[in-house]
């Protein structure tokens, strides 16, 4: 039964679990595989050779490799909002119910309309688009580009929000081992026995690396059994963390490694409370890179046919998955390792038609092996071209040593051009690989500090060397991390010859010879690139897109360099390599975001009165991570402006209350606190009397206003500063800088008190009466006892300590009262209750904004980082008697220029007209051109007190133009009208209401 449904499955063998058959679908076709399969191996077992279409020419493609370097077998997984494009079938662990679809084809994989591109191939060569599509110019965006864009890209994204969750996590260890093949296992084992904290990661779902795919024996047992025993020892050790399905994708500074754990991708459905993937940031004292090596193809005609498979991948399918990629296999190898495919296929009973090895003089052993396998041997031969139909390879042309051409039938061509150590991670911090002529491959040079390379990743290809090097590097790493390690016994293994003769590209191929399979870059494209002067490898890459696809040229790059080197007459190392960059294999964007998306993108800060405000139905607005109530709609109020105006009126005529806890608050203490403040504010604070508050402005060192706020002196050595909400952290950092870096000699202590105090503004003619209901009776808050700009500490509500400041942002008789934040909720409720007889009305940030505009107070819109104190009309505050941050630079002509725009007020000439911030000001009758631009509106509000809109803004020479009219020019809103320039203080200019 199973054999029938899986026609290319071997009857026995492999590391699959035949007791656990799994149903899955490919392009709607139902198939069965086994637990332990990858999607690719299950497809192979089911005889599927055609898995997708290539990028540019829509050539039929099949599985090329058995690992994460796969360029061809890209599929779309799952469906709906979980649709996942461009997934390498070779890395997908099979699960029950998996649905995969081929990509980049229409209407179907076997008949793909755009495969006509192949006919136009002569036109679609490297760089063709730079030379065409320029006429007529307007056609580019309307016609050409949309066509190009549609043809480009491989898979389709779902277009829907990703419903899965992701996590990020940190891990720490002494020794990180990257790759769990024989090398990595030995390294982990050695470091583990030394007592080091070890993390071992492998991107595969099983440890063992090539041992799972080869027929090695280690210490007398099968490689897979040795892996089992070794992993068991590691698993039992408390100091080892084994991380399967975890790819180390990047090396970052100071021993930080990025790794992606695929927690749930192999599961049919999401497990509650578990993420789909977890992004690990591993901080390791030492690391051993044991990532193995990647086999490279040989460039010859038709080498991209489905059925042309890497030789080691053939062994993976046969040995690990008991799946047969062909019924008549030919092997084309330039190295000894490729011959293992001959042996293993023969052992599995798969007919080997021929072995083509460009080396004319082959050792006796290999010749005998070909004989035993019943294969025709072409020593000194080359495969010129491979032919077939879209479902696969049918024949190959072999050029014999003697130069004649022989055509052979084969449905699978196993090819091996040698091995490239997987050194990408060693270059992430900038080092360049070096060429090792003895193995015809690049190896790492100067890997990042703390990282050492071992085994095949280090160019040590033979198994014995891998085991020994793994142990040695594991020991070295443990020692370097402070443990004493001893070398374990290196298990005995058989010979593993690694001889090779380089062969990059077969000359005289007649059909297209692919270098980069996924981006359809051919040997010919490289030649064109060379002839057009794009000879640097980086130009070659960018001009042809070689190595830029989802596989990043893992199988293509070195062949391309070698071909370019031959064209330019340079050596391969002179030709150089392109730069590897993280991630080693592509990582889902959501994994980098983890928890921080949607509402949790950034933490949210809630005010002490938040619960209460939410009960009132207030809408909230974000300011510097805080959510603040914007207004408090009354039943029936649907227009925000109605609510806001009501709040303003109620405050100005009665009393209003507003949570202002979000303002930054800083305790500034110590004997030199006053002197310190004198240096950070433009005005003087050392002379401020205890129990008084003063408004201050601080500048940046470049003379521009940084922040403003009030500071109270609570005691001889204790000031209490307030900052704007958004600048709170910035000001704290600035003060710490001034204190620690500029003037460490001062006796000053700084502590943020923002969160300690719930602070409410109580404003309006009835503010004092309202307050009296809260204040404990022994405290006098009469106008005389606590005049405007007074500050005091007292108790309220029967002994609760509080700070009371008589300051006003609204321009009314007003106080700010502060209590420990936990009491904020109680206090707002208390204020509402004691204030009820006076009609107390809560007001939000909008009414706050209206009232501050009515009073001409600058806020965020005005303090935009380019404004001087003088621009704000506060030039007189700038003390000339002392130094302070920003004083000297503020004297520069550009900042001291009296012609600079000044903060003034604006009223619409037609009082019914609504004002808009962002409008520019033009002289009446002047043309709307930049030369006539005189300033712009910063803030506007509907003033219920004046019953028309008012605005603040900056205007050239503004202060001397009060009463003049200018045009408010707002073309993006289609508005244009006259406004009258006025004093920025619209209400109570003498400030009488504050002082009652």
């Amino acid at each position, binding site marked *: 039964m199973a054999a029938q449904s899986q026609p290319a499955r071997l009857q026995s063998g492999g590391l699959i679990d035949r007791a656990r058959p799994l149903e899955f679908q490919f392009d709607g076709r139902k198939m069965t595989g086994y637990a332990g399969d990858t999607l690719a191996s299950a497809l192979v077992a089911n005889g599927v050779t055609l898995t997708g279409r290539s990028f540019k020419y829509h050539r039929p493609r099949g599985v090329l490799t058995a690992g994460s370097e796969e360029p061809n077998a890209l599929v779309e997984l799952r469906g709906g909002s979980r649709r996942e494009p461009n997934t390498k079938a070779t890395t997908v662990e099979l699960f029950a119910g998996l649905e995969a679809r081929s990509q980049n084809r229409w209407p179907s994989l076997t008949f793909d309309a755009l495969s006509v591109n192949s006919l136009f191939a002569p036109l679609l060569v490297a760089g063709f688009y730079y030379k065409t599509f320029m006429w007529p110019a307007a056609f580019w965006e309307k016609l050409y580009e949309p066509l190009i864009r549609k043809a480009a890209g491989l898979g389709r994204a779902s277009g829907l929000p990703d419903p899965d*969750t992701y*996590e*990020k*996590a*940190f*891990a*720490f260890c002494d020794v990180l081992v990257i790759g769990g093949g024989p090398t990595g296992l030995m390294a982990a084992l050695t470091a583990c026995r030394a007592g080091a*904290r070890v993390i071992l990661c492998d991107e595969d779902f099983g440890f063992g690396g090539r041992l799972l795919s080869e027929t090695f024996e280690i210490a007398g047992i099968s490689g897979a059994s040795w892996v089992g025993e070794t992993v068991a020892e590691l698993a039992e050790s408390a100091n080892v963390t084994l991380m399967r399905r975890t790819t180390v994708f990047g090396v970052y500074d100071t021993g930080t490694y990025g790794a992606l754990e695929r927690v749930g991708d192999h599961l049919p459905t999401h497990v509650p*409370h*578990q993420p789909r993937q977890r992004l690990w*940031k591993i*901080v390791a004292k030492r690391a051993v890179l044991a990532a193995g090596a990647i086999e490279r193809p040989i460039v010859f005609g038709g080498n991209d046919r489905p059925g042309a498979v890497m030789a080691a991948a053939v062994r993976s399918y046969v040995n690990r998955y008991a799946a047969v990629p062909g019924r008549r296999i030919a092997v084309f190898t330039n190295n000894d390792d490729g011959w293992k495919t001959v042996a293993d296929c023969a052992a599995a009973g798969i007919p080997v038609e021929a072995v083509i090895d460009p080396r004319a003089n082959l050792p006796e052993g290999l010749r005998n092996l070909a004989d035993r396998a019943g294969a025709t041997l072409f020593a000194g031969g080359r495969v010129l071209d491979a032919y077939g139909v879209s479902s696969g390879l049918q024949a190959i042309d072999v050029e014999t040593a003697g130069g004649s051409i022989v055509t052979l039938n084969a449905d699978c061509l196993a090819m091996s051009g040698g091995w490239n150590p997987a050194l990408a991670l060693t270059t992430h911090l900038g080092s360049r690989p070096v060429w090792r002529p003895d193995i015809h491959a690049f190896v790492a040079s100067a890997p990042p500090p703390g990282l050492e390379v071992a085994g095949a990743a280090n160019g040590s290809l033979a198994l014995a060397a891998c085991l020994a090097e793994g142990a040695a590097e594991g020991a070295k790493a443990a020692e370097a991390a402070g443990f004493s390690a001893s070398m374990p016994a290196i298990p005995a293994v058989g010979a593993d010859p690694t001889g090779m003769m380089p062969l990059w590209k077969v000359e005289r191929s007649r059909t297209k010879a692919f270098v980069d399979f996924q981006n359809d870059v051919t040997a010919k494209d490289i030649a064109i690139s060379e002839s057009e002067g794009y000879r640097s490898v980086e130009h070659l890459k960018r001009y042809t897109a070689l190595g830029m696809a989802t596989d990043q040229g893992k199988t293509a790059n070195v062949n391309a360099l070698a071909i370019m080197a031959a064209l330019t007459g340079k050596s391969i190392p002179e030709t150089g390599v392109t730069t590897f960059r993280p991630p080693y294999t592509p990582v889902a964007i959501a994994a980098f975001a983890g*928890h*921080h998306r949607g509402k*949790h993108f950034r*933490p*949210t*800060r*809630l*005010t*002490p009165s938040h*619960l209460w405000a939410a009960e009132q139905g207030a809408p909230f607005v974000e300011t510097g991570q805080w959510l603040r109530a914007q207004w408090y709609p009354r039943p029936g109020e649907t227009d925000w402006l109605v609510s806001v105006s009501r709040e303003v009126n109620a405050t100005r005529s009665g009393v209003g209350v507003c949570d202002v806890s979000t303002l930054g608050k800083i*305790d500034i*203490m*110590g*004997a*030199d606190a006053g002197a310190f403040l004198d240096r950070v504010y433009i005005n003087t604070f050392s002379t401020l009397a205890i129990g008084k508050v003063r408004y201050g402005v601080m500048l940046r060192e470049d003379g521009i206003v940084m922040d403003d706020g009030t500071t109270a002196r609570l005691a001889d*050595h*204790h000031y209490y500063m307030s900052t704007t909400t958004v600048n709170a952290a910035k000001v704290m950092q600035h003060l710490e800088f001034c204190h620690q870096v500029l003037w460490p*000699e001062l*006796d*000053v*202590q*700084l*502590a943020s*008190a*923002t*969160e*300690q*105090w*719930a602070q409410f503004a109580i404003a309006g003619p009835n503010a004092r009466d309202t307050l009296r209901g*809260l204040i*404990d*009776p022994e405290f006098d808050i009469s106008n005389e006892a606590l005049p405007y700009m007074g500050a005091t500490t007292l108790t*309220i*509500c*029967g002994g*609760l*300590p509080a700070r009371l400041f008589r300051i006003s942002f609204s321009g009314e008789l007003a106080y700010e009262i502060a*209590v*420990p*934040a*936990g*009491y*904020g*909720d*109680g*206090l707002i409720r*208390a204020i509402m209750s*004691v204030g009820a007889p006076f009609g107390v009305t809560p007001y939000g940030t909008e009414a706050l904004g209206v009232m501050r505009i009515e009073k001409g107070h600058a806020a965020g819109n005005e303090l935009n980082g380019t404004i001087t104190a003088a621009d704000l009309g506060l030039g007189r505050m700038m003390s000339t008697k002392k130094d302070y941050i920003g004083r000297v630079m503020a004297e520069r002509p550009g900042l001291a220029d009296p012609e600079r725009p000044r903060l003034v007020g604006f009223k619409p000439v037609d009082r019914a007209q609504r004002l808009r911030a962002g409008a520019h000001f033009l002289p009446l009758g002047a043309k709307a051109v930049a030369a006539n631009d005189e300033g712009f509106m910063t803030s506007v509000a509907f003033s219920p007190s004046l019953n028309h809109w008012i605005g603040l803004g900056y205007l050239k020479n503004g202060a001397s133009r009060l009463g003049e009219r200018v045009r408010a020019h707002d073309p993006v809103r289609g508005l244009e009208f006259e406004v009258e320039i006025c004093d920025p203080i619209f209400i109570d200019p003498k400030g009488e209401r504050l002082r009652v």
Partner: protein
Amino acid sequence: MSDLALKPLSAFRGHLAFTGMSEASGAGVTLEVRDDLAMAIVIARKGRLAALAENVCQTYGIDLPAGPKRVAAGSLAFIGTGPGQFLAVEQGGDALTFASRLAGALGDAASISDQSASRAVLRVSGPRVRGVLAKGLAIDLHPSVFRPGDAALSSIALIGAHLWQLDERPTYEISVFRSLAGSFAEFIWSSAAEYGVTIDNP
């Protein structure tokens, strides 16, 4: 008017009790809200660190730590938060008077800023607690590196956090700014859910 006597509201009010929270079974992690801690920042005045240490030692029998450590005696602990700076934490005392009591005791060797209300503190413990914290905290809490008595100021999932270890269970206390209690609770909850969460005093 004294008839209004106000009660403090827990910063976690409305945040820890949300649906699903206590339903997640398993005891991977146990959470306990610590609303009974009085806190104050204590900063040595210029050149007075030795005098401060002397005072603290005499008054409370506590040797001020030189680094980020927690040193406790009875219900009082001092935690190093920076050079010459400490967070004093008193369990069960009167939060409203803590800062002034400290000030009285320590004299002019230190400046003191009341912080009792500024922090929301969660006690987290249980076998999986390190795994949960690793999801947001970039500090190695392995028992060979971070032990009872150790403390750290850092951030957890972008939220500034102060953490100290109490015992080897392990039990930690984590303090965040009060306004961030909701975001913090949400993070702890979603990170701990896979291991199971129990709340001692929601």
